[in-house]
């Protein structure tokens, strides 16, 4: 499924990613009798209030105590349950060591689903904007890391993580998101897809940056630069085959993510690309800084992760590619 012919429906708004997650989890819950949802008093914020209302007996309230919640999830999984741990990304980071030892090292089938990642959090400010979560969880052996791009993909990924046997960290998102995919969209853990064709440069993105990369490709098209856009919802394991193919066919890349440029999607792409066919890569993301208060779009502009900056990075990448030839 490396190709996706669904048109990018930029401009039509859908649910926020957290709502898409919470609603889909509730919808498919009857198919997973061992499913339990764990919450640290933020159900209204993470979207699992839908689940709480429908299945109160399978909704476990832990209070504001993420370390206990994540470790307890390991114990629940040890008895055969499928625990989905929910919380805000920044607060789940305080249970990082529990995710490392009690979940991943012990090999438990626990799903950690984090809402409110990145600058997308908005006005709550820098303290609440997790911009290092992908890097942190990606470094844990065996941990799958996912960041879907739109509500359709978020819903598909919600089922996929329940089907997958093993530890997963998945981002959702707080703000109203752009709908990109039709209902025939396909999501498979470990697979990216080309969502716009082009041969001059490849823009690889995850989460809210996929829509911005599509906009960047439109800006570039006006300059007769044909940018390929790759949606890469699984950061770990990364789709190396697709990246290799894109390097061969376009010769340079830009990565875009609502995350620090260190350790996240950009690093994962660079690691994969340099193993096979090294090429110029430009990284769009937070330049090793924390966030601050503001609306998500204002913040994206302030921290230079919007479409014009992705387009500028593409021009730099192409220029570097041309110098090498």
């Amino acid at each position, binding site marked *: 499924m490396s190709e996706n012919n669904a048109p990018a429906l930029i401009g039509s708004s859908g649910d926020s990613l957290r709502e898409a997650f919470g609603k889909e989890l509730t919808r498919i819950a009857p198919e997973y009798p061992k499913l339990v949802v764990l919450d640290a008093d933020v159900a209204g914020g993470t979207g699992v209030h839908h689940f709480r209302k429908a299945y109160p007996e399978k909704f476990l309230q832990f209070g504001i105590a993420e370390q206990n919640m994540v470790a*307890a*999830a390991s*114990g629940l999984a040890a008895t055969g349950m499928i625990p989905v741990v929910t919380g805000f990304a920044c607060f789940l980071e305080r249970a990082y060591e529990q995710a490392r030892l009690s979940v991943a090292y012990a*090999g438990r089938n626990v799903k950690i689903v984090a809402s409110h990642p990145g600058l997308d959090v908005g006005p709550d400010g820098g303290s609440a904007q997790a911009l290092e979560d992908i890097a942190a969880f990606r470094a844990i052996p065996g941990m799958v890391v996912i960041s879907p791009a739109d509500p359709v993909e978020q819903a598909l990924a919600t089922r996929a993580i329940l089907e997958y046997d093993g530890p997963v960290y998945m981002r959702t998102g707080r703000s109203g998101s752009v709908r990109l995919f039709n209902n025939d969209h396909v999501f498979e853990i470990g697979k990216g897809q080309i969502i716009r064709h082009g041969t001059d440069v490849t823009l690889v993105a995850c989460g809210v940056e996929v829509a911005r990369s599509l906009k960047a490709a439109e800006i570039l098209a006006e300059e007769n630069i044909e940018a390929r856009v790759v949606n890469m919802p699984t950061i770990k394991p990364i789709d190396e085959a697709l990246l290799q193919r894109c390097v061969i066919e376009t010769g340079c890349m830009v990565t875009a993510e609502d995350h620090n440029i260190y350790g996240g999607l950009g690093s994962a792409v660079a690691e994969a690309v340099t193993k096979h066919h090294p090429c110029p890569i430009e990284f769009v993301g937070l330049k090793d800084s924390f966030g601050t208060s503001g609306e998500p779009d204002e913040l994206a502009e302030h921290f230079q992760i919007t479409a014009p900056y992705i387009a500028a990075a593409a021009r730099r990448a192409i220029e570097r590619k041309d110098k090498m030839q």
Partner: protein
Amino acid sequence: MPISAAVQQTAAPLVSAPDIEVQIAEAARFTRRHLIASIYRATSGHPGGALSCADILASLFGAELNVWPASVDDPMRDRFVLSKGHACPTLYAIAAWHGFCDKTESLNLRKLGSPFQGHPHVKDLPWVETSTGSLGQGFAVAMGMAMGLRLQKIGARVYTLLGDGEMQEGSVWETAMCAAHHKLDNFCAIIDYNKMQSDALNEDICGLHPLADKWRAFGWEVFDIDGHDIPLILSTFHRAASVHGKPSVIIANTLKGRGVPYMEGSPAWHGSVKLSREQAETALNALGCTAEEIKEFLDV
């Protein structure tokens, strides 16, 4: 290589209460000998806090847990989680006594390629129930097991052993609050209260007093007992099992290094120490080993 009679002693069938107590005392004695030998052979390990909990683990495995080597995958089994994972030589020894693992192989502690790691790992040894080694986590994992069993209407109980220094981890109190809130009466924590931690006395590092009151205030049923009195440990397990509507904690007052006089009451033997041949021999001698048994434990 000949397998030593001392190392390969086996647990006899249990019949009446006094017999059980005798058998548990014998298991505890074997456990102490075995852990001294494994720590000596590893050239590192934590003997003080391993010795202090030997009677507790011997009592649990000898009479309380409904788990046997053939039932380690049984969903109905009771669970035991060693939250103070650094005391794993005690767990390995009592497990060997009851046939969960080989008595000689389990002396191969902390070695490359051995499943008997310096802290227990469930993927190496399924009967350890979960991986521990970061204080506080095993307690929370065990509570999650108690929740999972109750959700599935399985009547098994979950036991976990914590160290006293472990209670300085803030997450312990998250779990304490949560278990009481959820009224997990299938959950029993035991505290190996030897009053010492890595560097010094608890009270000199970060005091725990008043410990029983803290747990009562968190909504737990508290039993404050001598952690070396086997009949009392057994009867307390029974009392804890009959508590309804809240979890139980057994504060087991113990002596660090119990059974090896030169280690007793000294925090110097908490940390990962290298035992000399002479120290190991002295310890085993104090634990009643003959010269021949000492040689077998240390050289087999």
